[in-house]
């Protein structure tokens, strides 16, 4: 994985609290590390990565799972693009398991899953659409995403369940990028399933430059 020293928050070149239910994005330069901190615990963070040079190349959940041979994202997972290139790696993880099979919530899927009364609730796809519009990207560009701190066990029979998050307050995950990447987050507003403990909360993002040799 990495011999790199554990970064100190004081050395971060960027630090920002993403309010509950809101999107965030930033251009990460090759070698930089993004840390996402689940401040209060049990907060799902939906994420997408696009190659800054050519955003048609983007994170691919199926390529990532195939290369890894397994369904969950964890320490050491390589995040692979739809062109088969490594975009980033998980270089630290105090939570233990993250999802990339369950996609993001949308007004439309909420209405199917939880009833039509939930159609007019804010959802991750609304966040993604707004944030992606800053880069000339649109719904068409939203692919199957990462869900940090989200626990979606898949059992051998295929049972597929979003269950209570295993992330405790202060847990974090570090993502070190192998290319210049537009990193997009939706701090998930879902209140109809346990991915946020039925209570969306803020998360913190920090960015470090690569350690100098």
């Amino acid at each position, binding site marked *: 994985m990495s011999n790199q020293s554990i970064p100190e928050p004081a050395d971060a070149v960027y630090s920002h609290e993403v309010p509950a239910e809101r999107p965030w994005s930033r251009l990460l330069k090759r070698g930089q590390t993004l840390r996402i901190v689940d401040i209060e615990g049990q907060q799902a963070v939906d994420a997408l990565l696009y190659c800054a040079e050519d955003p*048609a*190349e983007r994170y*691919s*959940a*199926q*390529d990532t*799972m*195939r*290369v890894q*041979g*397994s*369904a*969950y994202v964890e320490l050491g997972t390589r995040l692979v693009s*739809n*062109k*088969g290139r490594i975009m980033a790696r998980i270089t630290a993880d105090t939570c233990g398991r993250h999802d990339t*099979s*369950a*996609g*993001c919530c*949308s007004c*439309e*899927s909420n*209405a*199917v*899953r*939880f*009833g*039509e009364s939930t159609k007019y609730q804010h959802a991750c796809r609304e966040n993604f659409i707004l944030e992606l519009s800053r880069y000339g990207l*649109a*719904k*068409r*560009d*939203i*692919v*199957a995403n990462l869900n940090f701190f989200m626990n979606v066990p*898949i*059992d*051998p*029979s*295929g*049972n*597929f*369940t*979003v269950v209570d998050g295993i992330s405790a307050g202060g847990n974090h995950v570090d993502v070190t990028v192998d290319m210049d990447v537009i990193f997009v987050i939706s701090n998930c507003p879902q*209140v*109809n*399933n*346990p991915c946020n403990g*039925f*209570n969306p909360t803020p998360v913190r993002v920090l960015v470090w430059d690569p350690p100098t040799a």
Partner: protein
Amino acid sequence: MVGRTKAEISAANRRRYEELRLAGQDATPKALPAATALDGAPIAPQAVISREEVPPGWYDTVRLRRGEALRIIDPLGVSSVSLIGWCEYDPSERINCADTAKVQWSAALSKGRVILSDMGRVFLSLIEDTSGAHDLLMGGSTPASALAAYGEVSRNTHENFLAAASKLGLGLRDIPPCVSFFAPVSVDAAGRFVWNAARKRPGDLVDLRAETDLVLVLSNCLHPLDPARPAAGGPITLVRHRAPPAAADDPCRTTSPEIVRAFQFTDRLYA
């Protein structure tokens, strides 16, 4: 809902979630129809619209109108067939594997299940299925997977999808995660993908009824987990046909409250 506290709302939402989960993972699977017998679903000759044999390594594009169906047959039991598809009128609406699994509480497709779009609508119903061993998670072969498995870049599903998309005026941005039929993939307790070769049989077939007007691409390439090499692949047969109209108690339309809603939202397009 006036006057409820945040904690009361959270508790009510958790209760609803647990009720839906119990139904979705207990009552619904128990009520699903049994798998189709290998000789159990002949198509009446007059219902056939067209028939195509796709050689190993190749792809085909199929347009389906609402109510038509596509039968995919693996005559030799050696092929896997990867599928993507778009709404004919708005290709930004496309097959969504994640919503398909979440809404049905299962990554296992079988007779009676459906494939959903990203807009909360049903694209396809599995009205016949002899296999029940399909992959909704891992996806098809790519140049990188072929190189890793075979030592060379064979024909592969990713490049097939790209070629088919390009001929429709679409491109790399428009290729969603795919479903692979006759690809018996399961997930073990540690999260590792497992290939269950014994679940492939000559003559396996699946019938997909279109619930909206669709453009589908089907790629006949070995699944990346299949230990066989590309030379072992065989042809597949695609039969486009007029499916019998769905009755009110159609098994695909009535499996759960979620699916009933998904069909309500789909039918509104045609109301």
